């Protein structure tokens, strides 16, 4: 198998966290993998040992979705929201709220798919409701990894290791 592409994470504004990843497939397939429950349940699983027993998607503007995950130990995690843009096969925008409310209110998650030479770049933009919401999310530690900016921090740590 070829070497897997690397994930990039940036914070272009106060309210956004942006994750990009290239996959070796045309955009229509990627869009399906993001929007068809039977496909999504096979990959969006999170940490090792977790499954996604609930995946309901009403794919239309104003339609709702609901995802639930379960660990081998029986812990559960859930989230859901409403689609505000559905542009097959290039763009998907939805609100997102975790049951545990890690993000202090709704975030808006935009998924953009751009195809070039048979490969697709998936850009996920997570926008927080407000600066306050983002700062509160920061305190939970869930999104702080993004805030710190993985790449820059990695560079910093490489320097630390050398120093």
């Amino acid at each position, binding site marked *: 198998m070829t070497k897997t*592409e690397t994930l990039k994470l940036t914070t272009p504004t106060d309210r956004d966290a942006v994750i990009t990843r290239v996959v070796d*497939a045309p955009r229509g397939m990627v869009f399906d*993998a993001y929007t068809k429950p039977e496909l999504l349940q096979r*990959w969006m699983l999170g940490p090792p040992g977790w499954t996604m027993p609930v995946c309901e998607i009403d794919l239309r503007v104003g339609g709702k979705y609901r995802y639930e995950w379960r660990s081998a130990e029986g812990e559960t995690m859930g989230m859901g929201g409403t689609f505000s843009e559905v542009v097959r096969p290039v763009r998907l925008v939805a609100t997102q709220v975790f049951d545990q409310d890690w993000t202090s209110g709704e975030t808006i998650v935009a998924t953009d798919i751009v195809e070039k030479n048979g490969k697709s770049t998936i850009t996920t933009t997570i926008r927080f409701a407000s600066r306050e919401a983002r700062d509160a999310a*920061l305190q939970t530690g869930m999104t702080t990894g993004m805030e710190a900016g993985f790449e820059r*921090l990695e*560079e910093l740590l490489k320097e630390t290791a050398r120093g």
Partner: protein
Amino acid sequence: MKPSGYSLDATFAALADPTRRAILARLATGEATVSELAEPFAMTQPAISKHLKVLERAGLITRGREAQRRPRKLEPRPLAEATDWIERYRKIWEANYQRLDALLQEMKSTQRKAVDELVNAAKPKSKNRKRK
């Protein structure tokens, strides 16, 4: 998924600023005084001192004993703890995307097979059908 303890939150809050990250990068190369740290930035010493206080509260840096210079130096442990957590989070995303890679490959081969079947079906029967 949630990391434990206040200190990790303080570490991340301290790291969520480009100037403070640059200060840490500078200190990674060796200890430095406030004026030495202020030099590369278009900032006053009081502004730099404010950033240093945040880093100090997060336990990311400490002050040297030397009374006059009071050089700041990097404390590697909190930074390493923060990265451990980031690495876990990053791994979750990476694991998702690697499963997506595998799924997309499977979808591609299924589609190719479907296309092959359609092409074969469309070919004139007399030429391509093998006799059984």
